[in-house]
């Protein structure tokens, strides 16, 4: 079956996000009152699979994330 998968990979709590800091500063310079800005990695794709949750988990573990520094979450829904 075919699934629409979305994956978010975030830096672990406590690790700083240099890119997020730069973007936050730029937005503040434009006058926006922004805080705690983070730039997680985000992936969208279609997956042909019998077991999409398990495979999404595996993809994160094997490639999309580095378990030392990242946490991840994903959502899976059937492609209509």
């Amino acid at each position, binding site marked *: 079956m075919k699934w629409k998968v979305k994956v978010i990979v975030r830096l672990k709590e406590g690790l700083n996000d*240099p890119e997020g800091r730069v973007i936050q500063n730029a937005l503040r310079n434009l006058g926006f009152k922004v805080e705690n800005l983070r730039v997680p990695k985000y992936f969208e794709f279609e997956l042909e699979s019998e077991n999409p949750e398990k495979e999404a988990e595996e993809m994160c573990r094997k*490639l999309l994330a580095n378990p030392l520094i990242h946490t991840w979450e994903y959502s899976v829904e059937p492609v209509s």
Partner: protein
Amino acid sequence: MVKFAVIVFPGTNCDFETERAIRKAGAEAERVWYKTSLKDFDGVVLPGGFSYADYLRAGAIAARQEIMEKVKEFARDGKPVLGICNGFQVLTEAGLLPGALRPNRVPRFICRWVHLKVADTETPFTQFYEPGEVIRMPIAHAEGNYYADDPSKVRIVFQYSDEEGNITEEANPNGSLLNIAAIANEKGNVLGTMPHPERASDHFLGSEDGLKLFRSMVEWARG
């Protein structure tokens, strides 16, 4: 003569000068496309560059290619495995070295000459340096900010320092933990370095401090 493989992934770009430096250090070297086999080599070098354009995370995709299984065998057999810059990133992503290389503290690519203090002269790559020696090499990376959850377990080989060898905050170009610029595995036969020794292997280019690293490695491989 001992012979080293310089592995070329799609996007690797320091392979020619690395090959040149190894030859200058007295060994044979051959650029090896990542889909070819790794036979009859005495050691492996993963050169710098942008394998897979650094997409996803620097080194992440190269680390999952089949040839890395072979590199792991070299590491297990105690043969020298050297990762330079992107090669270092590949080695951490492949689990051959501990920790991770994160985006620089100021998230930008930087290319600059730095001073390094040699912290460990017991590895095959650093046996020709004096303990505490201060050397010069260029860095050129966007993701060289070394991170490990337990730094006490890391075998530190080079640290960013000032000219006198002081490990200071100002001398740290990328935010690396403990100013770490290069580390080795426990056995010492796998080395990852962010600074580029191959770019410091010719006095016309500013220094030959990096050539010593290749000489050490070649000498050690000779046995």
